[in-house]
């Protein structure tokens, strides 16, 4: 008999004299779960952008996006509604949230008597779990299902750049592009940023999957000048990118550029099959982005399109205004070639005169004017008509047309927009010690941050809070720019502080050239007097409706001529809208009477 085995178990009685380790929940105390516990969701409703990534990763379809406010740019207005009859507390949604707004508390008790109660919108509905926001499962910077770091773009070194007009940005290699495209979560918020509503997530997905041709064709669905966009677009899509909230946005522009750069001969790969001509004719004035877009898509739809362009090349401001180190000529030619290949007729060196315009109105079923803003704005100060004061737009045009431009040693560029920076960088490349003088602070500059950075790399100083007062003759054939200092005054109800001149102080720059880059204005001299008087203007631009119709019958307008953003992608968007408008007009769905 196993005496030991019978007696030993009796030692278990010693446990009876030790205190019990029962946790007396819930009657005597409450027990808080661990700091990392995956409890109920909380959502910072203002931080959330409604990108729907949480709904996409939820394997249980527990998350439904519901509308809580009107959509805005970069915010769908939708917020996740969580069904706790589905949720499995895996917290994948927390880890994937691109803004970090969706989190979990460490609250775990939720008892209800009805099964319908287990649905709520975190952050909107109050169920009592919201107060303990500080503890629970939170996003961790180390683990992120999203790749927040952009693949860096290779660029020419600053010192190398200024020696020539070689392209500064080198473009992605294939591997880099795939890796960058991989990052996109496909939420589609970027579409709200893009004026042309390009199918951004789709073509990025195609790149990630290695299908460049598919990607190219998706791009060509609503942008006939992708390489231009890929190089010089103001990329408003990237500002809406949901990855940009915690990290760097997807390099949408560079990816588009990568795709188009893969193909030397676009005609082979772009599936552009124009429909047979339907007998309607559309005349277009100006072969800028808007004009080319309209011409291309109208031709694809079977309309005969003809463009009249004053310059020897198509491209408008993208040809004449953008420096070649940003957008080389061959890239432009490639795209124009494709546009011409579908049957668009472009008459180069044929500026439109009032007579010709009247003829066009008779000859064509519709006329689209997209002549842009070819004239520089004046500073409206004394001595501005000095011969050594030139407008940036004229300066750039001359450089791009290959004319010899004498600018001397020292050049000041007045202004803070992209044009100003283009001008100052071109001047630098022409061998001048150029610099920028701007009325406000650097942060207020409307130019792209990237461009401003580039000036730093290239050793171009930016002087700020400078208000030009007058221009005078200087010594040794130079010219003097007299200016005053400004102080920034924030006024009630204004978005940003405005510069106010500090009276009494006057300084001067003595330079060879003063380049004025404070804005542009349209040139409408080709319009007949009658039309010019009749056409409705919106300050200095032509007023159009959402179908790009002007107040003159049969005349549509678009591009910089009609919109204030004055960038290429908006022009393309105008072109696209005009296509739709013209098509509807020619089909009789739209008429000026009904307008």
């Amino acid at each position, binding site marked *: 008999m196993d005496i030991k085995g019978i007696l030993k178990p009796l*030692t278990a009685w010693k446990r009876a004299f030790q205190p019990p380790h029962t946790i007396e929940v819930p009657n005597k105390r409450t027990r808080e779960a661990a700091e*990392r516990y*995956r409890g109920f969701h909380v959502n910072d409703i203002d931080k959330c952008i409604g990108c729907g990534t949480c709904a996409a990763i939820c394997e249980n379809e527990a998350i439904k996006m519901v509308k809580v406010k009107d959509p805005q740019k970069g915010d769908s207005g939708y917020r996740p509604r969580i069904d706790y009859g589905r949720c499995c507390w895996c917290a994948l949604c927390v880890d994937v949230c691109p803004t970090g707004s969706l989190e979990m508390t460490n609250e775990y008790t939720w008892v209800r008597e009805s099964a319908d109660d287990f649905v709520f919108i975190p952050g909107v509905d109050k169920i009592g779990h919201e107060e303990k926001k500080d503890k629970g499962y939170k996003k961790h910077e180390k683990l992120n*299902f999203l790749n927040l770091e952009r693949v860096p773009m290779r660029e020419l070194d600053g010192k190398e750049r200024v020696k020539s007009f070689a392209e500064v940005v080198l473009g992605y290699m294939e591997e880099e592009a795939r890796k960058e495209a991989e990052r996109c979560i496909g939420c589609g918020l970027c579409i709200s940023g893009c004026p042309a509503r390009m199918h951004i997530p789709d073509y990025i997905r195609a790149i990630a999957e290695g299908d460049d041709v598919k990607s190219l064709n998706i791009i060509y669905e609503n942008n006939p000048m992708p390489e231009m966009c890929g190089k010089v677009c103001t990329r408003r899509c990237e500002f809406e990118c949901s990855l940009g909230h915690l990290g760097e946005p997807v390099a949408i522009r560079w990816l588009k550029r990568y795709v188009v750069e893969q193909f030397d001969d676009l005609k082979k790969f772009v599936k552009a099959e124009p429909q047979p001509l339907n007998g309607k004719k559309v005349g277009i004035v100006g072969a800028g982005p808007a004009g080319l877009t309209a011409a291309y898509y109208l031709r694809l739809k079977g309309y005969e399109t003809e463009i009249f362009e004053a310059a020897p090349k198509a491209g408008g401001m993208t040809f004449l205004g953008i420096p070649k180190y940003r957008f080389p000529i061959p890239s432009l030619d490639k795209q124009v070639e494709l546009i011409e290949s579908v049957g668009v007729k472009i008459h180069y060196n044929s500026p439109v005169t009032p007579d010709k315009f009247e003829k066009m109105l008779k000859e064509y079923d519709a006329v689209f004017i997209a002549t842009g803003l070819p004239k520089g704005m004046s500073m409206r100060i004394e001595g501005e008509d000095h011969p050594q004061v030139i407008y940036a737009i004229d300066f750039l045009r001359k450089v791009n047309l290959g004319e010899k431009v004498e600018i001397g040693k020292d050049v000041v560029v007045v202004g803070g927009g992209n044009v100003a920076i283009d001008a100052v960088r071109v001047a630098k490349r022409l061998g001048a010690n150029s610099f920028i003088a701007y009325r406000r602070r650097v942060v207020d500059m409307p130019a792209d941050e990237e461009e401003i950075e580039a000036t730093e790399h290239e050793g171009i100083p930016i002087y700020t809070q400078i208000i030009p007062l007058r221009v005078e003759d200087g010594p040794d054939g130079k010219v003097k720019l007299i200016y005053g200092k400004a102080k920034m005054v924030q006024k009630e109800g204004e978005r940003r502080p405005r510069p106010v001149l500090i009276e009494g102080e006057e300084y001067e720059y003595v330079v060879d050239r003063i380049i004025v880059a404070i804005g542009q204005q349209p040139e409408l001299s080709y319009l007949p007097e009658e039309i010019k008087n009749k056409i409705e203007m919106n300050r200095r631009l032509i007023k159009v409706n959402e179908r790009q119709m002007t107040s003159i019958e049969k005349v549509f307008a678009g591009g910089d001529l009609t919109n204030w953003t004055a960038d290429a992608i908006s022009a393309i968007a105008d072109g696209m809208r005009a296509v739709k408008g013209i098509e509807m007009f020619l089909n009789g769905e739209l008429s000026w009477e009904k307008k």
Partner: protein
Amino acid sequence: MKKFSKEDREVKLFVGPQHPGVTGNMSFEITLEGDILTSVKTHVGYLHRAFEKLMERRLFIQNFPLVCRICVPESDTNEENYARALEELAGIEIPERAKWIRTLVLELSRLQMFMRWIGGIAGTMGLGTAPQWSVGDRDYILDLFEELTGGRIYHIYILPGGVRRDLPEGFEERVLKVMDYLEKKLPDYDALIFENAVFKKRLKGIAKIDPSWVEEIGVTGPVARACGFPFDVRKEQPYEVYDKLDFEIITETGCDLYAMAMVRRREIELSIKLIRQIIDRMPKGDVWTHLPNVLYWKIPAGETYVKTEATRGEFGYYVVTDGSDKPRRVHVRGVSTPHAYTLLERLVPGMNISDFSVAIVGLQTCPPEIER
């Protein structure tokens, strides 16, 4: 006088699915002659959730909340297996520290499962104190899990590319504290359970396995090791960092339930030892490598079979991919499938009905993994 035929003497009886002595929901159709069993038929399907079907229609990353529920009490083994299969197919290397943390989690998971099992086997024989102690003490391990992973039972902690979070501050000390506590408790368990005269009497000589069945049927884990077969996936085919740890395979030669119990009893000590080693040798560094975008993650076509040593034996995942973003087929090798069917059918004839549920718990059949 009328002679009773065999059929007349036999009684058909059913055990489960709702049966306090059986772990999980499965039912057995048993035939009795008096108190002696003559045959058994196992029925499962009460927990069938069609995991393998559901996984085929979810993204790779979305499968993780599913896989951890395949074997409910031991979720980490599933996660690790599936993650390792995907890493193998996609060619992902994970950081060294992540491997160590995974091993730590796996060992903690084995430890808690063994603790639960002690309660199971003793509770089946009516020793109510044992489950009260062991499940209560197991809860301290669950607390550790909660702190580390954010969940008590379903951790979803091991993902392809590493583990989800690094150890919280001071976690190592707390693990060691719990290990000290458990080590201090082990003699009490021995006195109450493993050296208990009644316990020994009930288990010795019951469910005697013929060692030749082990390879023939595909028996693995403690059941095989109780027959003197030194088979342990951790040694045979080391995964994560088991090749860097010092340990010996535990075997017993009794071939009966008591030998199985003693293997598991010694595995507890081994697990504690391994956890101490892991804490001791764990390197510093990253715990996570970036995956490709999980929402669109595609894995090239291929197939693989990976396995780990779960508490019950060889837990395998057969994963087939076809180059899309969802698995083509995931087939889970439930460890106890041969135990619950082929082995049990061979063991049962001649067994007393009172020993039946003890034998089921002793073989550690786990229905969720059999039927998925």
